């Protein structure tokens, strides 16, 4: 055994030496042979440990990139999200391509074993091609972001783990839509097998690619992907309970099941509990094969040496970064926080549309509430006990709109902090609004759509963010951030106006996560905007102000929606009216304080009462304008007819936008640069 390990170590060292510049090879060969000899003769160390150290020494050198190639490690924080979402992107692409392929033959093809096998092969080829294309496209994007340097071989191995987690997430989402949880162990076994085998395989393929042997790397990947898929399927078969086919003495029975349902996850819709291995086998290989192909495509592309022109070209981010972005906002965490807010908002939108809407207020009840002759029909019971469609009919509409606006503002802010143009984000927001209207108008507000809308919304956001990197940088990022900051501040207090719908019922956690979470995100966005645009030096640490202010809507909002409060206010009408008026009246004082903070002025507390009264007057105007906007524009588009509700959010967005723009223009015009003052 010792001789075998030494031979392996010697082979690895020889492979490592060949990759170094020719003038260094001889001396390095001698030096490493000396170190390997020293490791093999360490006193007081047992033989297995010595062997392990020798192998590790040689393998590390074999996988390392020699100087000159200038590799970088994979930047995890920035790109894990991309890797995690890669399976979702592949899933959408596979659905788009495979569903027509499966539907086309209906009516003129007779399903025989041969034609079925041909369809299966065709579907797998399409899936593999899509996984490879998506994988390489994403890898190209990662490459461009890292100043044109290839990723280290070890980094390619690590990059497979988010991909595996992403596929597991797809599996969980698909199971969740049909509540098929029995048999989840199979997916976990597959993921664990992948986690053990895929990283070294990806590292090996990347090593070949890094050495310029791309053809060999692709060949190895083409052989390894089906082999690994078969091996993992067999591991699942071994772990499964005894089946009739296995009991009949046919050891290869499971091969007949593989690939019958190659479309990722959509096949879960047909499944019922309990889930035997015969039902899992036709579906899971699709997941496994896609994960393997995606990972290997990533590895081959990421590790490939770049041409000298590509390596010296500036990255899109560097080229598009305008010079007048302040130091605080240049921190990567600045735009990442805004992007995280956008992700939360998109998920909140999907949850509101597909889960809260049918449970709180059946939104399709909207047109049925009014008879053709104009009479109001009685309210209907909603999905949750004690709730009726009356509470949700308007609130859900407001929450859906709030989530879309919040996502758009977060993405716009992130774009402004990176100096990117806003047009793709605006286009993405309009697309999200259109999807919302189509789903409501079609009456498809069902939890089954939750994973698809959530994934689709995230992919839309990624596409908007990606598209913005290809355009010219914006000219006045400060003006844009001030507009968004004022608008966000204006929206926060009014977000709690729907407390009026809850009365004395406790809001469920899912509802609180949306109804309280969105204003919390807007608060953070506004606080960050103040820090970035204020003419005063920001107080450090920078996270303290957004985190402190976010506690107000987060904690206060949960208390505000508590059912005990409803009980207290039930017998005191005057107190109840004041309590409902507070969120509406606070919008103006909050905006005034925000503008004062940006322009570096102080506002006296004595001004609070008149500002609050002004806020109430503005709220009346906001509701009136919202009613006009909603009845003329939004309701007819969404429901095909107008309605009698009194919304708030459309008017608040319009008013806040106007206020923010005017403020931004005035502050930007009046800005006088303040030099840094020593002493």
């Amino acid at each position, binding site marked *: 055994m010792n001789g075998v390990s030494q031979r392996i170590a010697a082979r690895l060292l020889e492979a490592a030496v060949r990759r170094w510049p020719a003038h260094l090879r001889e001396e390095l060969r001698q*030096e*490493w042979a000396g170190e390997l*000899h*020293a490791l093999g003769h360490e006193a007081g160390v047992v033989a297995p440990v010595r062997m392990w150290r020798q192998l590790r*020494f*040689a393998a590390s050198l074999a*996988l390392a990139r020699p100087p000159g190639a200038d590799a970088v490690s994979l930047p995890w924080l920035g790109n894990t999200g991309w890797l995690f979402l890669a399976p979702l992107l592949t899933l959408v692409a596979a659905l788009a391509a495979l569903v027509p392929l499966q539907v086309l033959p209906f009516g003129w093809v007779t399903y025989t074993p041969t034609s079925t096998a041909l369809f299966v092969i065709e579907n797998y080829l399409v899936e593999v091609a899509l996984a490879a294309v998506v994988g390489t496209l994403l890898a190209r994007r990662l490459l461009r972001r890292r100043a044109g340097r290839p990723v280290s071989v070890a980094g390619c191995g690590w990059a497979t783990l988010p991909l595996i987690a992403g596929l597991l997430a797809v599996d969980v989402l698909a199971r969740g839509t049909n509540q098929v949880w029995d048999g989840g162990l199979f997916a976990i076994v597959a993921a664990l097998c992948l986690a053990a085998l895929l990283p070294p395989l990806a590292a090996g393929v990347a090593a070949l690619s890094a050495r310029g042997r791309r053809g060999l790397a692709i060949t190895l990947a083409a052989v390894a992907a089906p082999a690994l898929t078969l091996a993992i399927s067999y591991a699942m078969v071994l772990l499964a309970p005894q089946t009739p086919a296995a009991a009949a003495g046919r050891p290869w029975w499971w091969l007949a099941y593989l690939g019958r349902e190659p479309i990722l996850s959509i096949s879960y819709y047909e499944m019922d509990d309990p889930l035997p291995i015969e039902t899992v086998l036709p579906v899971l290989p699709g997941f496994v094969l896609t994960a393997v192909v995606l990972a290997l495509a990533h590895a081959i592309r990421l590790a490939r040496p770049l041409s000298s022109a590509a390596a010296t070209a500036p990255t899109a981010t560097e080229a598009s970064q305008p010079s007048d972005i302040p130091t605080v*906002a240049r921190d990567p965490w600045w735009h990442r926080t805004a992007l995280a807010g956008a992700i939360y908002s998109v998920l909140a939108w999907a949850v509101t549309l597909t889960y809260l809407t049918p449970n709180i207020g059946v939104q399709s009840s909207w047109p049925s509430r009014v008879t053709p002759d104009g009479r109001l029909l009685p309210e209907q019971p909603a999905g949750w006990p004690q709730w009726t469609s009356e509470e949700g009919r308007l609130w859900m509409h407001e929450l859906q709109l709030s989530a879309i606006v919040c996502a758009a503002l977060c993405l716009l802010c992130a774009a402004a902090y990176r100096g990117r143009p806003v047009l793709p984000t605006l286009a993405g927001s309009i697309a999200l609004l259109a999807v919302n209207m189509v789903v409501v108008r079609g009456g498809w507000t069902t939890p089954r759509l939750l994973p698809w809308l959530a994934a689709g919304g995230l992919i839309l956001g990624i596409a908007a963010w990606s598209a913005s990197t290809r355009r010219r940088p914006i000219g006045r990022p400060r003006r844009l951030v001030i507009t968004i900051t004022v608008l966000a501040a204006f929206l926060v207090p009014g977000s709690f106006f729907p407390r009026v719908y809850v009365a004395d019922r406790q809001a469920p956690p899912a509802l609180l996560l949306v109804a309280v979470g969105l204003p919390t995100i807007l608060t953070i966005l506004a606080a960050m905007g103040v820090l970035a645009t204020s003419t005063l030096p920001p107080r450090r640490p920078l996270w303290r102000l957004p985190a402190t202010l976010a506690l107000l809507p987060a904690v206060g909002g949960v208390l505000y929606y508590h059912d005990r409060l409803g009980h207290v206010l039930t017998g005191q009408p005057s107190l109840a009216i004041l309590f409902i008026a507070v969120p509406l009246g606070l919008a103006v004082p909050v905006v005034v304080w925000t503008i004062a903070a940006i322009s570096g002025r102080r506002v006296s507390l004595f001004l609070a009462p008149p500002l609050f009264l002004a806020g109430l007057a503005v709220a009346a105007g906001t509701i009136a304008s919202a009613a006009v906007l909603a009845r003329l524009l939004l309701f007819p588009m969404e429901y095909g007819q107008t309605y009698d509700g009194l919304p708030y959010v459309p008017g608040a967005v319009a008013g806040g936008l106007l206020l923010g723009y005017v403020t931004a223009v005035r502050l930007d015009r009046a800005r006088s640069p303040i030099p840094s*003052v*020593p002493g």
Partner: protein
Amino acid sequence: MTERVRMTTSVAQVLAVLLEDPETGRYGLELMQATGQPSGTLYPILTRLQEAGWLRADWEDIDPSVEGRPARRYHRLTPEGVAAASAELAALRAKLRPRGAAGATGFKPAPGW
């Protein structure tokens, strides 16, 4: 004549170990143990430092047949390398110093936008 070396955490670790006693040569395994870096990280760094003129490598003066082992290669900083590495590490420490420490000089950061 020395060239500039791109300063990373790994490079700084190697330089810090070599600067502890610039006159003493260190072989690869010794540096691996001192820095905790694997061979695949350490040797490319040593080569880069050598090509930049910061480091020189000398073979151990022994007779392998008498000693029963191959000769080792010792790495030590050149005089130019000592000066450059000291300057780079000092600059790195200053850069990594907590931001609050800047207050002692009375410097205030410029306002945003």
